[in-house]
Each structure stands twice: as C-alpha cells, then as structure tokens.
C-alpha cells in the first residue's frame, strides 16, 4: 500500500522518478584514451578530444559499451543491438564542445525493472532506459572572488544515465531503489558506486497528486549525492508542493537544488527561457551496432546478483530475511560470509560477522577489506565455539585478541589456556568448594532466597577463570544446592 501524506484538504500521494548518473568503471574515457582516475592534478587527464580542439574525432571505448550492456542485463532490461549517439546542445564553461554526446531517441538499453525491499514487502520499480553519455568537466566557484576555475579531467568520462519510471511513492522507496541499484552496479563492477566522489549521483523528480488523480506538475532536484539526502529532499519537496497547492498556488515546473545544511530545496536562479537542447544525431559518430552473440557472451559471465544471493542465503543457510538482506548488500560482505560460514554454524556466523566484526571495524574506521581477521580465521573461531572448546563469553575475549594481533583463535586459546572446562568432575570440585566457602549464603538460599543462585554461578565461573561450561555449572549447582 502506498503511504499518503496528510494535508489540510486530505490525503496526498507523492510520485517520484529518479535519474541516476553512474560513472562507468573503465580505464579510459568514453571517446578518448585519457585516464579516468579520480583526484589527479587539474587538466592532466585531458586529451585534445576532451578539450574539444578543432578537428578531433571521438572513437568509442568498447569496454564502456560492454559495461552498459552488463548493467542493462543486471536490471532485467532489453538490450538494443542498434543505438544512436546524439548531440545535446548547451553552453557552459565546463563543456568545451558546446554539446554533450548522449543518446536521445535510441538508447543502448531499453525498459527493465528492479525489485526493492521496503517495510511493507517487495516492490517492483520499472526502469525506462539506460543510455551512455559523456560527463562534463568540473567547475569550482570558491577559489577566487570573481573567477570560476575549470578542470576538464572529468570531461568525457563515460556515464550511464539510468531513468526510472515514476513508480516510486516515498522517500523510503527512493532510498531503497538507489541502494539496490548501487548494490547491483557494484556487484557487476560496472560502477564503483562511490557517492562521495560523485561516481553515482541522483536527480530526483517529485510531484504530488490526490490519490487516483492525474499526475501533478513535477520539480527536478539536481545532483543529490547521498541516499539520506535523497530521502530528505523528497520529504521537504513534497511538503512544499502540498502547501503551495493548498494555499491556492500552482507548481511551476522547475529545477531545484537541495541544501543539505538547511535540509530544504530551493529554486535554481531561473533561466530566462526553458532549455532547448536541439538534439540531433552526432555526425562524428556512426550508429552503435553489435550482435546478440556479444550480449549472450556477457550474459554468460554475470556474477550472482544480490536478489538471487539473498534468496539462496535464506533457502540454503536458513537465514532470516533481515540477516540475508544485510549480508548481500555488498558483494565483499557476502563473499566474506560464505568463506567464514560454509561448514560451520550459519546463524552464529551471521551474528558474529554482523555484530562483533563490523562493530570492531566501524570503531577503528576500517573497511572489511582491511580487517585484521580473515574470513577463514573467524570461521575457525565459530568452530571452537560450536564444539564447546570455548564458551561464547571467552570467545569475545579471544576475538578482541585476534583483532589486535591477527593471531589464530586456536593459538590464542592454547597459549592462554582458555579451553572450556567441560569435565563434570572438575566442575563438581569447584562447585563443592564454593558451597563450603559460603555456608551462610547456602543457608539463605535453602530458606527461599532464590536469586542467590546467580551469585553461586558467578563464584564458580570466577574460580574457573571463566572457563567452566556454563550449562554444566548450572546443572551441578542445582543438583548440589537442591
């Protein structure tokens, strides 16, 4: 069920469509052989093609084409064996050509869909298209009082623009959509998904309507660069539009900016006239054609994607939906989990990875790839918990040691003599001595002060330096005190 926003005049439905710009992972640019690496010296990764010097001709990078096809397959979309590059004309200082090479009427990828998991279940979001285009350069406005600085390193880098259908109905759904899309391109290796560096950016189209009525006028919020901001921008913008309409105003179709500091959207300085891009087929580029064999070859080489992995984790490992969703979001996490958990307790492994390891990594600001504990090593810790060599409590201490030293669990257990005592005779002796040392407490307990039981357990565990098998301690204490 769609959730509605309450206004003074009743319920309102939010209608959202997203345009995601995903930078293609490739060594060289879409139409030139200059590098794409982030963070290089200004204008050092610019060829004469990217700088739009007269007479330079674009030549397409075949890897970018493969990456677009792969992404198209990842979003269940129709791949177009014939597509056309067009010029989108506008003037801006960071666009040296005076036009962006894009795809307009005939994109490389057509309709598709993806599925998102939201609080009220799984929802299918339609995708309109995916096309290839050039990125622009970067303008910096804060370096000088009267000048803007231009760096063309990003000019000509390949982007995939992925356009959703207006199927999204809330900030939560929009967030889940971007998260899923990001997860898919990262699994595929077609975009690194780094929103901070701008490898993945969103334009958000928002309109509101009374349920069941025609679509309202939309506003486009440009370049939102985090999932949280996407949600905040939608919530603010929908409220703003509802208030405008209820106050008797109408909505102007316009481009707006989201200000993360104030948590609001505002109109970009209005342009005298609406954009007129005058698209036409780029005469420098022939149509892009490839045969189905290429698509089949790419399809046969696809990794298992997050949805399939999630289903498999639930069926094969009997994990809960929540655990499975968390584990598959990042491919590295899923792979770490499988290495750690195969042949071991699946649920225990999921808990230790999710709580202990990620807890410790977050605290140190480390990524999973930088973890001092390998998947195999954490897996062996699971084994010695499961077979009773050590207790869960001792395991937490061993884990801290492993995290600091990188040493193997079993080595630490042996070196420190932490093996769990599961010998009933030995524990029995400890129980006897606790009972004889605490005669008065034993008497109180026998006179009905039940909560003293915890005290006795604590004393026995202390005497065993935490190594006694807690279940045996409980059983033996009950037996001897009763």
């Amino acid at each position, binding site marked *: 069920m769609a959730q509605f926003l309450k206004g003074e005049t009743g319920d309102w439905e939010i209608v959202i469509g997203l345009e995601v710009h995903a930078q293609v992972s*490739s*060594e*060289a640019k879409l139409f*030139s*052989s*200059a*590098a794409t690496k982030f963070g290089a*010296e*200004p*204008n*050092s*990764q*610019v*060829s*004469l*093609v*990217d*700088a739009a010097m007269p007479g330079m001709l674009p*030549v*397409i*990078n*075949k*890897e*970018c*084409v493969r990456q677009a096809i792969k992404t198209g397959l990842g979003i269940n979309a129709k791949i177009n064996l014939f597509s*056309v590059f067009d010029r989108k*004309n506008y*003037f*801006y*200082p960071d666009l040296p050509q005076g036009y962006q090479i894009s795809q307009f009427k*005939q994109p490389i990828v057509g309709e598709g869909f993806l599925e998102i998991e939201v609080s009220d279940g799984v929802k299918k979001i339609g995708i309109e298209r995916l096309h290839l285009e050039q990125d622009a350069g970067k*303008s*910096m*406005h804060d*370096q*000088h*009082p*009267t*000048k*803007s*600085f*231009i*760096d*063309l390193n990003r000019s000509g880098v390949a982007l995939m623009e992925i356009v959703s259908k207006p199927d999204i109905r809330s900030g939560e759904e929009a967030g889940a959509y971007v998260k899923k899309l990001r997860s898919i391109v990262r699994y595929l290796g077609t975009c690194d998904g780094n929103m901070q560096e701008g490898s993945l950016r969103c334009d958000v189209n928002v309109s509101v309507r009374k349920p069941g009525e025609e679509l309202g006028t939309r506003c486009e919020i440009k370049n939102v660069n985090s999932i949280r901001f996407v949600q905040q921008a939608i919530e603010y913008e929908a409220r703003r539009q509802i208030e405008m309409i209820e106050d008797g105003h109408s909505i102007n179709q316009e481009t707006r*900016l989201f200000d993360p500091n104030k948590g609001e959207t505002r109109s*970009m*300085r209005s342009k005298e*006239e609406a954009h*007129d891009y*005058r698209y036409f*087929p780029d005469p420098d*580029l*022939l*149509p*892009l*054609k*490839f045969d189905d064999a290429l698509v089949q070859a790419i399809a046969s080489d696809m990794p298992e994607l997050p949805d399939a992995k999630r289903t498999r984790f639930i069926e094969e490992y009997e994990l809960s939906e929540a655990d499975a969703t968390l584990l598959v979001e990042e491919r590295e996490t899923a792979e770490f989990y499988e290495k750690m958990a195969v042949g071991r307790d699946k649920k225990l492994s999921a808990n230790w990875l999710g709580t202990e390891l990620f807890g410790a990594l977050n605290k140190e600001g480390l990524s999973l790839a930088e973890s001092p504990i390998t998947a195999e090593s954490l897996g062996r810790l699971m084994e010695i918990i499961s077979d009773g060599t050590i207790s869960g409590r001792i395991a937490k201490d061993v884990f801290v040691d492993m995290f600091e030293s990188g040493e193997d669990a079993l080595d630490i257990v042996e070196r420190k003599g932490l093996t769990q005592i599961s010998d009933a005779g030995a524990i029995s002796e400890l129980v006897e001595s606790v009972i004889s040392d605490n005669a008065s407490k034993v008497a109180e307990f026998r006179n009905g002060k039940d909560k003293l039981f915890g005290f006795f357990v604590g004393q026995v565990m202390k005497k065993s330096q935490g190594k006694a098998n807690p279940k045996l301690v409980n059983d033996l204490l009950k037996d001897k005190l009763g």
Partner: protein
Amino acid sequence: MSLDKGTVKRVAQLARLRLDDEQLEKTAEELNKIFTWIEQLDEVDVSNIEPLASVTGHSLPERMDEVTDGNYPDRVLSNAPDRASNFFTVPKVVE
C-alpha cells in the same frame, strides 16, 4: 515554412549570437531562402523508409580500454585566455 524575426532572435540567442535589428531582418531573409531550398526535399515520398542516423550503413569503429593519451596540461591550456596554475579560469558562473 517562414521564419519570423522572433524565431530568428531565439535561435541566435541559443547559439550565443548577438544580432541587432537590421541583422535579424537580413538573417531571417537568408534563412528563409535556405529553408525554401531545403523544402524541395519534401517532394520525395519517404513514407516507407526508415529514418537514418547515418548514410554509410557502417558500424562504429571501436577502441581498446587503454590509457594512451593525456598528461599534457600545458598543451590543453595553451589557448586559454586566462588560467590559474593548471586551471582554466572564466568569469564567475554560479547558478
């Protein structure tokens, strides 16, 4: 088809050309002559022909994904009217 002065003005603006009234008049006249000439193509019946994006029927030549270009900021900036270290600089543009 006949272009009026208003349309020509708009096209000129989109192309960042500043034309005064006299030039607008003249340009409209010239453009209309060109249109009349091109409109002769309307006589050809194309109702059963697929639109073409290219006339050769060839496909796009491709390039390997290898970095073999760039790393010459001085060449890239050599025509810049104004620069600061290795940046191009332009009058401030903030939207």
